[in-house]
């Protein structure tokens, strides 16, 4: 889907911030992903147009970064840390619990991620890049459920405010 008029205006103001429009590829991809729920081929082609490069260039750049999802991943991206601090205080157990619980749920995409810089309150996870810390498996699931039921309002899939 192409940028909505509102997001197109945002994209143009982002581009104007940089001496070289090429710098706007990452921020524009965030806007597109927040809008569409994932980073579509069409969106990357449109970004290429806006910054004056080729679609292949934009795809090449975006495929380098783990936050850009190249296929639909539901409404909630749940990122669970299992790096060296979370590893010893229960991160892997949270990951397993959420993986099992949402295995068949198309709205929830559970992924294992590297250190989220929340080690002081480990174990930690992010739901659409909103931090939740000091977790146990049941609590993590309750938080995801709260997002699903609308008790908590999620950010966009790329972490932007809605």
């Amino acid at each position, binding site marked *: 889907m192409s940028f909505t008029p509102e997001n197109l205006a945002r994209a143009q103001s982002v581009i104007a*911030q*940089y*001496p*070289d429009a*090429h*710098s*706007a*590829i*990452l*921020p524009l*991809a*965030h806007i597109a992903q927040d809008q569409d729920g994932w980073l579509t081929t069409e969106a990357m082609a449109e970004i290429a147009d806006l*910054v004056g490069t080729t679609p292949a260039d934009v795809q*090449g*750049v*975006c495929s*380098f*970064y*783990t*936050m*850009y999802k190249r296929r639909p991943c539901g409404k909630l991206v749940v*990122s669970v840390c*299992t*790096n*060296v*601090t979370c*590893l*010893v*205080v229960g991160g*892997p*157990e949270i*990951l*397993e619990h959420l*993986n099992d619980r949402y295995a068949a749920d198309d709205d929830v995409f559970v992924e*294992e*991620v*590297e*250190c*989220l*810089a*929340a*080690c*002081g*309150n*480990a174990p930690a996870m*992010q739901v*659409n*890049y*909103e*931090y939740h810390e000091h977790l146990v498996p049941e609590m993590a699931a309750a938080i995801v459920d709260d997002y699903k039921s609308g008790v908590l309002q999620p*950010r966009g899939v790329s*972490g*932007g*405010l809605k």
Partner: protein
Amino acid sequence: MTDTKKIEVRETRIVTRRLHDVVDAWKYENARADGAYQIWADVLRKGDAADLLAQVKASGLRGRGGANFPTAIKWESLPADVFPRYLVINGDEGEPSTFKDREIIEKDPHALVEGVCIEAFACGINKAFIYLRGEFALGYDRVVNAVKEASANGWVGENIQGSGFSLDIVVHRGAGAYICGEESALIESLEGKRGMPRIKPPLPIHSGVYAKPTVVNNVETASTLTHIIKMGGAEYAKLGVGRSTGTRVAAISGHIKNPGIYEIEFGMTFREIIFELCGGLRDDKELKFFLPGGASFQWLVNCDEHLDQVYDIDDITAKLGTTLGSGAIMVYDQSTDPVLVAWRLAKFYAHESCGKCTPCREGTGWIEKILYRMSHGQGRPTDMELLLSMSANVSPDVLRAPFTQTTICPLGPSPVSAVASLEKYFRAEVDAACSGGRPGIAVNVRVNS
């Protein structure tokens, strides 16, 4: 260092004072009431950039991102007459167990913005980029808001406070790549490219973003500048020991009773930091080992020599070969399997290798695979030997610290530090891990790298 100065075991809150003491310090009015932008106003009134350089030089401030490069020397290296020039703040904090910058970014963004203003003025820079890690969604909102508020109140923008000095600050969000914390990879990423480190020279100070002279500084470094100007460089230099002046925001985590960030004066010992400042280990268990400077350097163990090591950038490298790195300290009790920790670190580096240099792209992956089977009950008798020989391709002279490297940036040799630490301190655990039949440890980590 022969410095015998005794450092009191307590926090010395300079950079982190406001974020601890002021409720919602991220809001402009709260930060302003606490004195935010006051030093910036003084700097503008005096208009003496040379004095700023002199103060920072006198302070002995060294970069807080991990490389410890003297900030004043970086500024002095700027080519004299080349414009435009840029300031880039490195907020791509992704090193495992490092979370000090996130605290500043989320809780006291005005301290960062004020530091950026002062630094830009000192270096004659009119455009600054604050590069934040993509996952810092809240941090991004907070810094964007801080810049907006600062502009609205006349601290950032055109002709600031009638001084004739203009500064534009752009907040840029990454998208999930640890390697972008390396300054030249960060610059590539800021230019909208894949985040792969550049071959140096040229250094960013000569040819950085858009091939223009670029000063790259860590968030903590920039946030410290305001306080140096406020205290005076010489006064700041009285803190700390030897060439490690001032304070360091240490992020302490793991099996520790009171994890979190602690701003400590250089010169404390690890024993004092772990057992007095942080209250010792969780459930009063016995210490097994700790990582003194983030994930990329050699580990230290529970022995007097290591625990009595002073928290001093040069001293620890001279005596033990490891470094204070990113300022993270990870603490592990006796229940921890060091081979498992080494594997998880290797998995991280294998995942985050950008793929530019062959020894790293291939090496990190193979190190991870072997450590995986060692830590999951399938180790073979020759595995440690194999691991060491493979590590030598990325970091010749494997056990040497600080490490050597066959790659452009230090990511490749980083997991080798873990391998070397196993070889040095954990022979019994390694032998058990290499003897195959050992029962697998229950880890529920999906292997996807």
